[in-house]
């Protein structure tokens, strides 16, 4: 691990914990991240689960990993390549070695490299003994299993139970390696296992043992010190995208004093939003697991009609099923938020992997002219903000809003500065105020064109809505064709006017120049980092702009595009934003950089592409 070995100081580092599904790598990674955050680092994390619920122990399919990037600068992604790889068994090494940087460090539980485990991983001999490996990487052979046994031997536990603390032993080693204090990890373990003092004791002992082992052995080489990042003051917590999405809704509901009704059907990778809201009965939130996605969205429509904040969450296949009812919400003009946590399609595709291929569906998936608001979050923590904004816009414009996130955001996590509720934008519920005028179901706010959201329980506001075309103002059913045309235009205009409220889009890097990188949604981190690295390397004339609002778009887009010679649209799909941009701003020429490998962009890929493109 030459790079780290020579430098005790690094600006950022990527660490990957990996082991068998039963080895507790997720918790280990989270604790490490937390200690880094407390040490003042920015960071981003991503878990990497096996697709199967439980693969055989020690098998390649059963490897579970957790990756974190931390730094003394702003960190937008969990990192491409790994500096330090922790492997708890041969299978973990086999599946993860490809992630390791040349010269990177491997910390391996050497005890687990038994004949049996090697065979399960498809090795004939121990790869640790391999000279090639030792030449290319810095290999630390730590006897984690035996040290754990040793440390806990007098606790009178069964072997299996003892082995559950192996991960804390490994964590201790890594914490020392990064010169972290172990205090708050100890506090955490003691709180978590309050009711199981023996487990707490075992974990703390293992942790300390690992730490001491690292301190006393020379195996590790010099430790790494990452200076703290400049991070705005505030209280922080780590948050993953699905939790942030769920909390955004709760915040919106509280802000406008409505009850949240989340009506969903489980689907990977969106289920956790439903799980979280199911726990939030304690906040008065309603969660409903419907019998299918259609029932879910219809129930959310019913919820909104009845005056609650109706939301439905799903992923691709479910989003397809919801298209018909989204049309109903569009013509009935009631608030509704549809969250699509995208995964790899088409059809069942690769359900646990990430892709950005539902954009065109979100824009155009419904029969008839059925425009609605489409937006996308760009990081795990800003899922909170866009979820909040989706609710706000749905309510204020009485319209369905599609919020696109994806698998990568959903499970990735990032520190989140806890907002003060007073700082979040106000949400104005469009209630009809009886100051002279007479209310009608399709009376509109003259500015925004939203309807008024009058609900059961409000005496005198009885009315009927539905999917048939409505007469303007009265909302009565009418077959009049001219009225229909007017309503189609009005519904489109209502959405278009949302554009007035959307903040201008930012450009990062060069404001004008040769190449503009364009992205949307979850690729923000990789694109932004690529830009920064290129800037750091002195590349000039590259700008970057990123879409969160996709329909309508911010109104300053043309003024951004026109300042660059070339526009490179980067997406994890076959060119959906590019297709859409061509139809919206046909005056510009767009090139594409697409990756459809069920994986996020690597920063390096973007840099390569951008640099080649710059020269082309």
């Amino acid at each position, binding site marked *: 691990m030459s790079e780290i070995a020579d430098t005790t100081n690094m600006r950022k580092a990527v660490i990957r914990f990996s082991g068998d599904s039963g080895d507790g790598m997720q918790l280990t990674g989270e604790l490490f991240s937390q200690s880094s955050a407390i040490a003042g680092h920015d960071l981003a994390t991503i878990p990497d689960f096996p697709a199967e619920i439980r693969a055989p122990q020690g098998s390649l399919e059963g490897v579970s990993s957790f990756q974190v990037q931390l730094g003394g600068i702003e960190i937008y992604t969990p990192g491409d390549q790994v500096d330090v790889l922790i492997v708890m068994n041969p299978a973990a090494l086999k599946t993860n070695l490809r992630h390791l940087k040349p010269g990177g460090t491997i910390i391996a539980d050497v005890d687990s490299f038994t004949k049996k485990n090697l065979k399960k991983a498809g090795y004939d001999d121990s790869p640790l003994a391999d000279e090639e490996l030792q030449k290319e990487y810095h290999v630390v052979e730590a006897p984690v299993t035996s040290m754990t046994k040793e440390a806990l031997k007098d606790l009178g536990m069964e072997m299996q139970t003892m082995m559950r603390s192996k991960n804390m032993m490994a964590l201790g080693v890594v914490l020392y390696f990064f010169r972290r204090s172990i205090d708050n990890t100890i506090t955490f373990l003691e709180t978590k296992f309050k009711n199981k003092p023996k487990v707490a004791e075992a974990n703390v002992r293992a942790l300390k043992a690992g730490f001491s082992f690292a301190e006393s052995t020379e195996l590790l080489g010099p430790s790494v010190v990452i200076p703290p990042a400049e991070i705005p003051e505030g209280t922080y917590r780590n948050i993953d995208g699905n939790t942030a999405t769920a909390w955004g809704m709760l915040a919106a509901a509280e802000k406008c004093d409505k009850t949240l009704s989340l009506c969903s059907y489980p689907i990977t990778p969106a289920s956790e939003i439903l799980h979280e809201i199911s726990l939030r009965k304690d906040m008065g939130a309603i969660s409903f697991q419907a019998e299918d996605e259609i029932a879910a969205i*219809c129930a959310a429509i019913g919820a909104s*009609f009845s005056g609650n904040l109706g939301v439905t969450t799903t992923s691709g296949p479910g989003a397809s099923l919801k298209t018909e009812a989204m049309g109903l919400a569009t013509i009935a003009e009631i608030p509704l938020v549809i969250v699509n946590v995208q995964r790899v399609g088409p059809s069942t595709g690769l359900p646990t992997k990430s892709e950005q291929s539902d954009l065109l569906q979100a824009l155009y998936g419904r029969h008839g002219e059925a425009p609605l608001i489409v937006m996308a979050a760009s990081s795990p923590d800003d899922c909170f903000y866009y979820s909040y904004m989706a609710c706000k816009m749905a309510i204020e414009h009485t319209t369905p809003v599609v919020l696109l996130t994806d698998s990568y955001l959903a499970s990735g996590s990032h520190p989140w500065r806890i907002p003060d509720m007073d700082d979040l934008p106000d949400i104005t519920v469009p209630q009809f105020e009886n100051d002279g005028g007479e209310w009608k179901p399709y009376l509109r706010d003259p500015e925004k064109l939203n309807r008024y959201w009058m609900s059961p329980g409000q005496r005198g506001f009885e009315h009927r809505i539905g999917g048939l075309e409505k007469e303007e103002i009265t909302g009565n059913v009418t077959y009049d064709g001219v009225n229909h045309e007017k309503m189609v235009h009005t519904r489109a205009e209502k959405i278009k006017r949302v554009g007035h409220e959307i903040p201008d889009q930012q450009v990062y890097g060069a404001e004008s120049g040769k190449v503009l990188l364009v992205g949307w949604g979850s690729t923000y981190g990789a694109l932004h980092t690529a830009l920064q690295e290129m800037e750091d390397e002195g590349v000039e004339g590259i700008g970057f702009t990123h879409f969160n609002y996709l329909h309508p778009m911010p109104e300053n887009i043309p003024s951004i595009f026109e300042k660059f010679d070339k526009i490179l649209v980067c997406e994890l799909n076959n060119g959906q934003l590019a297709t859409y941009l061509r139809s919206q701003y046909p005056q510009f020429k767009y090139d594409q950089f697409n990756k459809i490998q069920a994986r996020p962009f690597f920063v390096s890929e973007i840099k390569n592409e951008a640099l080649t493109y710059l020269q082309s």
Partner: protein
Amino acid sequence: MSAETNIEKDILTKKDFQTDQMIRWCPGCGDYVILSSMQKAFAQLGKPRHEIVCVSGIGCSSRLPYYMNTFGIHSIHGRAAATASGVKLSRPDLSVWVITGDGDSMAIGGNHFIHAVRRNMDMNIIIFNNKIYGMTKGQTSPTTPMGQKTKTSPEGSFENPFTIGELTIGAQGTFFARVPDNNPKLMEEAIVRAGKHKGTSVVEVLQNCVIFTDGIHEEITGKDTKDDNQLYLEHGKPMIWGKEKRYGLKLNGMSLDKVALGDGEEGNGQDHPDLLVHDAYNNQPELQIALARMQLPDFPIAMGVLREVEAPTFDDLLHSSIGRARDNTKHQKVSDLFQSGNTWKI
């Protein structure tokens, strides 16, 4: 819950529930009677208009909400029960009515129907069973009898129809009633009882479509045949019917036997102690199922409330669960939630 609920009860009449929209059913359609019976029943039930929501799917029947002066949603085909579930679980204080057809509720909407019933969501499902798709001009529905010619079964349907009552009970239903569309009194009564029942009430109305299945219920509802072909079930009363009450029902093992009580005889339970006595409140459904299954010509068609049993409703359970969680939480506000667990300060 943010909505102000109005405590003062209105005294309303049928007329108060009428709207100014022109009613667009065919002249003579059975739907008219259902509408008017519902309006009368609503007046009886005494909920103010703004606390009632009628939710329908798509079909001739599903046009009803436009003619009912309450809150209403004319949703999409088959999804009335799902949409109404969203209303009810969000606002348990509201009186929620699902207006649907045999196609809407039993074909495309079958799943939402059985799930609403299973959950015992406190709402009332009125099924206009004309045994055909009226609005789309005459295709086979899941209740169309075998042999019936329709646009999609020109040589006679060969699909085995559902019996709505059986399906309801098979899906754990707590309330099922059946009424003919030409007995407004009975209909009104059943609707009122449905409205009072806590849980999912299913009311099947044998409705005549004058265009596509005219007379399909004639044998059951016809002037000359109705007495002999309908058994009106009343809780606690013996099962006697027919012109001059000439028939009764007995149990034979687990089967039903139709017995003649003798001509002109005024049969009643006391005279015939072995006649079955209707028990709508019996939680065990086997007899009620047998009654729901009865078919002409061997048996009469059972009318009235076949089953009406108490069970917890989804909306109650949900909201008491929320109430308990709310009582025990540290999260009074979202900011409490945000600050909970592992946080750190910079």
